[in-house]
């Protein structure tokens, strides 16, 4: 990395691309510390030919090395396409890259994501627009990647027909998503940060209903990795700590400036890179990463594909709306609900609900921590009922749920709130 560029308070686009690429490369490269190349190759093959429906831990289906390589490569590919589309390395792109990387540990892979991105690309060409306008939808739209894998490998179709049909479905999804994502954002008024998660949930529900009508259904989830792995803990902790320290090279503003990030409600569209600069955005991402790791271990969980995926999504959205002040109250709501009414906060499902419930961070940011706690409670109550609707085809099940929670809570809060101000 070029230290001269890093000394500048205003980093160049090239430097931002380099830094995010370096993190992506480190994830891919780390894979080789966990497994030898031949195991990684066979693991990658297992991952790419698995149905990948929610919840498929690639640490179990393949192995840790193959999962990390899959994750890093997908992140690098996303960065490369963003660069070719002349997109700025801003909050939405950083959020998308880290979300792709996270879900590449439990559902997305090099095979099942490409046809969806191709479908969105075809949509952009049909509208005579450049792909950069739709790149966010394309990236988050890969939430439906399991649909491609499930049709290809999970329904027992002849291999060639399965692969052909799976990819045609992927392209079809890519064609459908742009108008739907743009329309559904009004449903939750920007209070669900995982807007495509909601869109993908509706789309997945449509396709799953059709599949069930035709006599096809999905098998249940596979198991998750449950061992304590100190190397995973060390690697990801180091990654997030480095993000915190890069702030000191990338921004000359004092640490107190972090309050400026913490003061944003975080509702869509809050791009911290544009509003507060790249250095403090990385700082916020690093803090959120550590919050995620501490939470997982504090409730008795372990780092596995899905939980690291949840932490990566938290970190990515640290550039696009989330910060500790608006995220922790919602996580606390999920934690308390799981503790009092559920099977305890330490199960993988409850941990994922806590990490991904932060899609509702804008509710805590806009209306305060009590509203955040209530949002967490409702989220935890609804989330276990939504996966059946799309049969695990939508990886962003928490985003799907968060759309309903926001759509229910926000109008109610607004109705009983004094007409004072929504920041204008």
């Amino acid at each position: 990395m070029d230290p001269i560029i890093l000394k500048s308070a205003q980093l160049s686009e090239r430097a931002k691309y380099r830094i995010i690429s370096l993190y992506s490369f480190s994830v891919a490269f780390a894979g080789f510390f966990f497994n030898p190349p031949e195991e990684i190759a066979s693991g990658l093959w297992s991952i790419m030919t698995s149905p990948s429906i929610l919840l498929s831990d690639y640490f179990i289906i393949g192995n840790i090395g193959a999962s990390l390589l899959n994750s890093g490569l997908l992140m690098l590919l996303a960065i490369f396409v963003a660069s070719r589309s002349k997109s700025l390395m801003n909050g939405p792109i950083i959020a998308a890259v880290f979300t792709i990387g996270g879900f590449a540990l439990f559902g997305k892979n090099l095979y099942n994501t490409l046809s969806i991105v191709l479908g969105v690309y075809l949509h952009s060409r049909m509208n005579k627009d450049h792909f950069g306008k739709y790149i966010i939808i394309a990236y988050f739209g890969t939430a439906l990647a399991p649909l491609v894998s499930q049709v290809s490998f999970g329904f027992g179709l002849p291999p060639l027909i399965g692969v052909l049909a799976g990819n045609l479905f992927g392209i079809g999804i890519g064609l459908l998503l742009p108008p739907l994502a743009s329309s559904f954002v009004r449903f939750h008024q920007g209070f669900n940060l995982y807007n495509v998660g909601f869109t993908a949930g509706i789309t997945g529900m449509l396709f799953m209903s059709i599949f069930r009508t035709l006599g096809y259904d999905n098998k249940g989830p596979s198991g998750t990795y449950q061992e304590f792995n100190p190397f995973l803990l060390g690697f990801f902790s180091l990654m997030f700590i480095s993000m915190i320290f890069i702030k000191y090279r990338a921004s000359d503003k004092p640490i107190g400036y972090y309050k400026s990030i913490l003061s944003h409600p975080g509702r869509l569209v809050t791009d911290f890179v544009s509003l507060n600069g790249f250095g403090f955005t990385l700082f916020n991402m690093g803090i959120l990463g550590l919050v995620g790791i501490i939470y997982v271990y504090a409730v008795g969980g372990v780092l596995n594909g899905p939980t690291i995926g949840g932490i990566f999504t938290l970190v990515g959205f640290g550039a696009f709306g989330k910060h500790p002040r608006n995220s922790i109250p919602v996580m606390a709501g999920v934690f308390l609900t799981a503790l009092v009414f559920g099977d305890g906060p330490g199960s993988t499902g409850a941990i994922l609900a806590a990490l991904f419930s932060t899609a509702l961070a804008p509710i805590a940011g806009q209306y305060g921590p009590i509203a955040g706690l209530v949002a967490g409670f409702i989220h935890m109550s609804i989330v276990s009922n939504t996966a059946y609707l799309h049969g695990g085809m939508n990886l962003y099940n928490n985003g799907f749920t968060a759309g309903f929670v926001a759509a229910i809570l926000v109008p109610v809060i607004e109705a009983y709130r004094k007409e004072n101000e929504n920041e204008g």
Partner: protein
Amino acid sequence: MKDEKSKMLKIMNELVRFYLKSGNHSVRIALDLTDHEGIVSLEGCCTKIDEKKLEDLNDILNSPRKDEAEEYYWNLVGSNDFSEIHLLGSLVNEGEVKYDGNVLKMRVKRYF
């Protein structure tokens, strides 16, 4: 040109919202559309308005367009009770904000 008229309407709504939230309940609006661009001009009386807020608005309106945010989020602009001023910057190419202590004038332009 697809959706351009809808986008211009939403930009107009967001700017009118800014006037209303600034305590101004009388706004004159002009909307001009050609094949290549849309211009919204607004004028109204504001007796008390935070000039820092106007400076920020001017910066936002003149920040570079952000295509990647536009297609995904433009439906949020001017459509609910919440300010989407930051998002407005992603949709417009240039803007002008003038305030003389009484009259607030704005003119924003979007190229199609």
